[in-house]
């Protein structure tokens, strides 16, 4: 992934001043984490197996975070992605008897439907995104538990699905590969298509966008559907890895995804977005998780470290 023309901001000269603090924070943090890893676990941390493991672990949240980047670019937010992940898994699970491909169709359809309902509620129902997707958070979770009758559905017989979750291509785990592909496609869509430009335009200045002939409602609807698509892909990878569809997966995934987007440098107010930053944000959290695991740190510590990192990274980026 190239270092980018990614953010909406500023010119060549203006950038030069901003690059040091704003866009180099995460790469520096990532390099620092790798150095720490090499020092404390030499021979274990810096192996291709371990690094691919980091990427694989991060892929489920990572794919969703790419979609979330577009939602936040328009000035919105999607709190329902974690619950939607569970609902999509269960919807696929109910089609399990018809095979792997039907599972995938079911999961994608449910995730897209949830995204479309979010978008419709926000655009035509005029409900603010925070509330609309908060409502969807509880609806989708309830739906998942109800459809599954509170028990996970075994997917042990679906070989193709399991290949998506834990297979390898040329030694690279499939989820890691798909995450990278989604990130690259996301970067292209944001920076090299009219849709990406319009999403940032709507987030940056909605009335100016309207006067320039953009129909903000369509763009906003589309970014929630796009996030639904990302959730559907994640649901397929997650269910394949677990070899089961569970109604309780995806808890707090929305917060991890939003955190990755925000430490990546995308503005919560909309109008400035970077897929590269989101990718680095996801990797940063993945590395921390990995390091603390290698050190056998309790999971409680991980939450504290993650939270502190969010505060520090965002505070550094917001310095003018």
């Amino acid at each position: 992934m190239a270092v980018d023309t990614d953010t909406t901001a500023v010119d060549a000269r203006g950038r030069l001043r901003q690059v040091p603090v704003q866009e180099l924070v995460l790469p520096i943090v990532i390099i620092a984490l790798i150095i720490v890893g090499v020092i404390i676990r030499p021979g274990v941390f810096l192996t291709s197996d371990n690094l691919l493991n980091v990427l694989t672990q991060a892929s489920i949240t990572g794919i969703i975070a790419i979609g979330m980047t577009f939602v936040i670019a328009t000035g919105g937010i999607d709190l329902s992605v974690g619950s939607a992940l569970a609902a999509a898994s269960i919807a696929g699970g109910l089609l399990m008897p018809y095979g792997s491909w039907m599972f995938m169709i079911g999961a994608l359809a449910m995730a897209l439907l949830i995204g479309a309902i979010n978008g419709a509620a926000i655009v035509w129902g005029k409900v603010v995104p925070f509330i609309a997707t908060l409502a969807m958070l509880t609806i989708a979770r309830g739906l998942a538990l109800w459809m599954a009758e509170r028990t996970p559905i075994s997917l042990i017989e679906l070989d193709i699905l399991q290949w998506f979750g834990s297979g390898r291509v040329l030694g690279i785990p499939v989820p890691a590969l798909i995450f990278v592909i989604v990130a690259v496609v996301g970067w292209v869509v944001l920076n090299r298509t009219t849709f990406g430009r319009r999403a940032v335009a709507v987030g940056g200045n909605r009335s100016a966008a309207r006067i320039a002939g953009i129909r903000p409602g369509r763009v906003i609807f589309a970014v929630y559907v796009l996030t639904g698509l990302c959730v559907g892909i994640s649901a397929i990878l997650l269910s394949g890895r677990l070899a089961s569809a569970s109604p309780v997966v995806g808890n707090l995934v929305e917060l991890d995804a939003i955190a990755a987007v925000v430490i990546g440098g995308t503005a919560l107010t909309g109008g400035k977005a970077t897929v590269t930053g989101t990718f680095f944000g996801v990797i940063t959290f993945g590395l921390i998780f990995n390091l603390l695991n290698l050190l056998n740190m309790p999971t409680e510590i991980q939450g504290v470290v993650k939270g502190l990192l969010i505060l520090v990274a965002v505070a550094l980026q917001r310095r003018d």
Partner: protein
Amino acid sequence: MSDASGPLLEVRGLVKDYPGVRALGGVDLTVTSGQVHCLIGQNGAGKSTLIKCVSGLVEPTAGEVRFEGDLLPVGDPNASIARGIATIYQELDLVPHLSVANNVFLGHEHKRGPLLNRAAMHRETKALFARLGDEGISPTAEVSTLRPAQQQVVSMARALSHSAKLLILDEPSAVLDDVEVEALFGVVRRLTAEGVGVIWISHRLGEVGQLGDVVTVLKEGRTVATELPPDTPVDTLIRHMVGGRMEALFPDRGPSRDTTVLEVRGLTRTPDVVDASFTLREGEILGLAGLVGSGRTELLRLIYGLDPVQSGEVEVGGRRLPPGRPDLAIRAGLGLAPEERKSEGLWLDWSMVRNTSIADLSRFRRGPFTDLASERRDAARHLRSLNTQPDAPERAARLFSGGNQQKAVLARWLLRSCRVLLLDEPTRGVDVGARSEIYRVIADLAANGIGIVMVSSELAELLGFCHRVLVMREGHIVDELDGATSTEEDVLQSAVPVHHTTKAG
């Protein structure tokens, strides 16, 4: 006139350096009590920096500011306020959802024990309005419900509540129409009669002669002329501001063609616009005059499809526009440069290129992708054709002056080869030097056959180069005047509601 021995404010050799830029390079200014001191200069001449140094918001690099003979501590806004220097900035700093009285006493509320003394604040607010000669404002009204002119009066009341001896007004007339400006003049004259000194900053040079006692001109951070008498001819003032010979402010009117390009029939959205009808020919510049609130902006928004229409229709080139669809209006050949350029026209953090290309992105689509190279090339070409300065199309729009930002909006519609341009106060916040350039750009567009509808609160510019001027009053188009032969009195006579007793002109 005050009989105090020395001047009220004395600025000597003021210098302010920012990294890489000298904003002020030695400014002198003397203001006496009871005097209206007009401060003029192009954007970037240093007017704002100067008043920020005086009001303590900015610490000067060198030089001194004396107030009533004493050296003023630098960089201490509270010290400036305490001594009686009140500044009313262009963007009014009122809290919209608080009452008038609460705004007036914001930060120095009257208290009875730990509680606010509302009665006392209301009483004193009333007294302040009486002093300002504007008793129509209720102390309990929410500020957001007031008209801009009234909000200005609230700001002035707040300044008086600090017992201001020097009042600095930064472009107070920018958001007011001519009648309201006249009322503001009255308020200022009352204050100077009480001995308050006033620094009046404005782009409207006509005001200098009407209101000012003396004039100081800044150019590139220096005082180039000071203590000029108020009857200095406008041409002379402009020559000081631009530092050289000034070309004619308004370009010649080109011929308009016979083909009708825009037809508006019975457009209505009560109460803002009622039964508005007119036609516009190719190459014609049509002015829309009227007081603020007479429905001019609303009429443009209706034509463009931004607001829902109750009845009436709009035709561009003989084809009817579906209502409420700006995207289709644009496709039919309309373009709009909105009044609130920063909040509705531009993405300030975006490059000028992106601001220019945004309305015509599909043109740069190659397969599924945007061709950034041709986007940059085409946008830069149009920006250059409008002489946008500096010639740095990748630089963020916020770093450009108002006039050059306006050019980005115009370049956007040139890129789309639009047929009709709707311009809402195109020279608002644009300094004198850049204004004549904007006028020339508009005239060139018209000469190329584009029809122009231009809303302006400045009658001089409407009569200066529009072919025809329509006058709006309370939502109705009430008069049509010939631009070349009509006078400002003609326009005001139609624009001012009959029940007003305000003196027109």
